[in-house]
Structure formats: C-alpha cells, structure tokens
C-alpha cells in the first residue's frame, strides 16, 4: 500500500511537471510571437502612425464595420443558436457543420464565394441590385465579409450558452404567460449573457482581424473599405516595420476592448491603474 501510494505521488509529480511543460509550451507558442512583435516596434514609428489621418480613418472604419458585423452576427445568430440549442430535428448535425464551414475556407476564397453569391453577376446579384443594394466595394460589403467569417464563432458559443441555461427557468417563464419570444428576450438571453458576450467578443475579434475576404469582396478603398488589416497589408508593401507597428496598434486596441468586455469597465480601469503604477 505504501509503495502504491509512493508510486501515486511520483506519478502525480511527473504528471504535474508534464502538464506544466505542456501549458508552458502553449504559453511560449502564443506569447512569444506577440512579445517579439511588440519588442520589434519602434515607438517613434508607432506614435507617428497613430497620428496619420489614413490610419485613424482605417481604425475608425474597422471599429464601425467590425461592430456592425458583430451586431449582424448576434442578431441573426441568436435565433439559429436558439433553434440548435432547444430543438431536435433531422439534419441538425449537418446544419451545424455547414455553419462551421466558413472557418475552413481560405479567406480569399471566401471573398470569391461572396462575389459569386452577392456580386453584380452573382446568384443573388440581380435580386440585390433590384433592391438597390450594392455590396462589393461598399462599406456594407465589408460588413458582409466580416459577418461571413465571424458568424460560426458566435453561433457555436451562443448555442453552448443557451444549452447551459437550466430548462426550469424557461418553464417558469412559460407558466407566467411569457411567449417563447418573450422568454427568450427576458430570461434566456440575460441568463446566457456571459456566454453570449464571450461569443460576441470572439466574433468581434475575428471580424476585426478579417483581411482576405474583405479585400477580395469589398476591395481596399480608404475611408470606404480599407480596414486596419488592409492598411497593414498596404504598409507591408513598402515597410515591414510600419506594418508591424500598425498590427501592434490593432492588437492593443482589441486587447483593450476584449479586456474591458471581460472585466467590465471599472475593473479594467483598476487593472490599467495597477499596470501604470507598476511601470513607473
């Protein structure tokens, strides 16, 4: 018994070390590139770039389009996630897989796919132009491209979040005269809020980083379709360092937003204050 326990302890110790090594490996894999990117930038270049009107324009456009895309994804993803979470039907697994597919598509191909669907000569092009809607080369097109690639992330997270809400609350709402929709709005969404927020944050991050589908489907026009990742791409044409500076800018920006979603504005302020004190 003593030897078995001894073996157990040794095994546990080994496992702990292995786990720490693996976890450390992941941290190095994810952290080191980010750190070395930040180390490489020239603060002067970054400061200059931040003040450039074109960059500010791109940043603003990125913010507007990624938020709009997230809004589109959230609004249209909610009913789908609700359906997937609460109903059983034929072909459900197939539908789930189809929703995941945009993730596999190389982004430029996604852009081509969007053009063949919503372009002037696309499948739905006639219907759209009939309705007076133009997507390619418009800001709306950027939103569509971002929504296309970001949607799977939100639907997956929202679906899991809905499934975690105890059925009893929905039943309670139903016995209190709440129609399914009323229950969705007043009970399910508030109770699944953390998961929905996390999913929206992931979607937003993906939309913010979107490049390939955007440049192919919507083009790269400053002020109209040139988002930050596109600006990074253009900078890359002449100056790698500038491109890195812009990427770090994009990173800092999304870090701030993601952290503030996770922590709430107040706690973010506290964290920043602490960081500032520490850096003094």
């Amino acid at each position, binding site marked *: 018994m003593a030897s078995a326990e001894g073996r157990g302890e040794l095994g546990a110790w080994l496992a702990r070390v292995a786990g720490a090594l693996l976890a450390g490996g992941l941290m190095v894999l994810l952290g080191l590139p980010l750190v070395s990117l930040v180390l490489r930038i020239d603060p002067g270049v970054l400061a200059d770039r931040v003040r450039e009107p074109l960059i500010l324009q791109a940043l603003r456009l990125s913010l507007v389009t990624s938020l709009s895309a997230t809004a589109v994804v959230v609004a249209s993803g909610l009913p789908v996630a609700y359906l997937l979470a609460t109903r059983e039907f034929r072909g459900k697994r197939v539908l789930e897989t189809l929703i995941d597919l945009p993730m596999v598509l190389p982004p430029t191909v996604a852009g081509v796919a969007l*053009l063949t669907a919503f372009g002037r000569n696309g499948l739905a092009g006639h219907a759209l132009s009939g309705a007076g809607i133009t997507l390619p080369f418009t800001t709306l097109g950027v939103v569509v491209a971002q929504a296309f690639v970001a949607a799977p992330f939100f639907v997956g997270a929202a679906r899991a979040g809905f499934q975690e809400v105890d059925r009893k609350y929905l039943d309670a709402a139903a016995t209190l005269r709440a129609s399914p929709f009323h229950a969705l709005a007043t009970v399910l969404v508030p109770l699944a809020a953390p998961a929905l927020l996390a999913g929206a944050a992931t979607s937003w991050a993906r939309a913010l980083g979107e490049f390939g589908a955007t440049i192919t489907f919507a*083009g*790269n*026009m400053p002020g109209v379709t040139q988002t930050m990742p596109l600006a990074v791409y253009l900078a890359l044409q*002449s100056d790698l360092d500038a491109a890195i500076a812009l990427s770090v800018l994009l990173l800092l920006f999304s870090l701030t937003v993601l952290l503030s979603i996770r922590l709430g504005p107040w706690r973010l302020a506290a964290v920043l204050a602490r960081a500032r004190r520490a850096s003094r």
Partner: protein
Amino acid sequence: PHPDSAPTLTVFAAASLTGAFRELGRILEARRPGLTVKFNFAGSQQLALQIDQGAPADVFASADQRWMNGVRQQGEVEGEAPVFARNRLVVIVPRTNPARIRGLAELVRRGTKIVLAAEAVPAGKYSREVLQKLASRREYPDRYDRRVLANVVSQEENVKSVVSKVQLGEADAGFVYRSDVTPAVARYVSVIDIPDESNVLAEYPIAVLTSAQNPEAARLFVALVRSDTGQRILRQHGLIPAPAAQPAAQP
C-alpha cells in the same frame, strides 16, 4: 457622366504601386480642384476579378500584362493599355549576409536558403527566366539554374513575402523587383544587381475602363502617369520609366 458636384476618380492599382500612385493622386487633385482620387490597392489578379464582377473603377493599373489582357478580353478596356513602367529583378541578401554571398555565382553554394516567387506569379516566372539566361552564360557555374533552384526553400505566392523573408534574415537570398527595395527595406538588405542582358523586364500596363464613371479624369490620370512628372515619380519609387513618347518594347 455623373452629375456629381465633387467628382471622384477611382483607380485600381497593383499594390506595389502604392507609394508612387498616392503621390500622383495628390498632384492630380492639386491640378483639378474639386476632384477626389480614390485608390483600391490589391493584387493585380484580385483587381481583375473585382473589375470582372462589376467594380466601379475608372482606371486599372496592373503589375502584369496577363491580368490586363484578361480584363481587356472582357471588353472592359477603353482603347489601348499602354505600358507606363517597367521593373527589373534584383537579388537581395540580408545586410548581415549570413551566407556571405557577394555575387550571383555564389547562389549555387550548397545549403544557401533561396526564396523565389512561385512560378504562377509573374515575378516567379521572370526569376526562372533570369536563371536560365544566366545558366547559358559561360562565366556562371555548370547547370547554374538547376543548382540554384535546388537551393530554393520556398516559392512565395507574393514577391513581398520574398522581401520579408530576406529582410528578417530567414532566407539568405531572394529574387525581387528593384522597386520592392524601398528605403525602409534598404535598411535591412543589400542589393545584387542582375546584368541587363540576363534580366527580364516586367511591364506595368494602364488603361481607362469602359465602365468609367469619370472617363475624362481617368484619361487625365493616365496621361499624368505617362508624363515626365509621372515618370520621375515612378523612378523615385524604383521603377524603370516607360514614357509615352517611346513605343513599348517587348522584353
């Protein structure tokens, strides 16, 4: 014909023209108060696809005849598509020059990490043509082209990736356009020129599109690019001028 009080000109241009064309756009705007010049910079092939799909473009400047021809075949081009600039290939090595390459002949040395653009990309096609031409010259080692190609560790989809890899010191040498060696890049790399007789000239055609909303401004822009001012600015950005006066020569 657009009854717009503030007319805009939309130029679709290869991403490698970014710096030069932005300058030219500002000049045209200064000459034509009220006119706004907008650019859509992307890969030539992406631009061609977009024009095919009905993009609202006035001018198309391609880094390659191929994509211009494609657009032309679709009947999208108004008139000619003259070549307004040329580019030539150079070999770049990192400033630190880890493989100690001082001449083109040393590219055959075993273990040298060379990057090229892929054959499907114009720069890649030209690079291979250059290697063949060099191989046919006596001052270069035996089976020069094959031995260099054997050292290739990556065939990039994009010339800029070749630049990045050399700039970051990952590759020992790479074949890029002269125009890719911008001042920012020049801080990190050294250039080894390829003799003109073995070099290949890439051609940049430009055209006004039939669907242009502002054909008059479009023609003005093309003229500006081909004018002396335009050609000077292109040269400043590492391109070889091809002014309007001379007829385009085949490489």
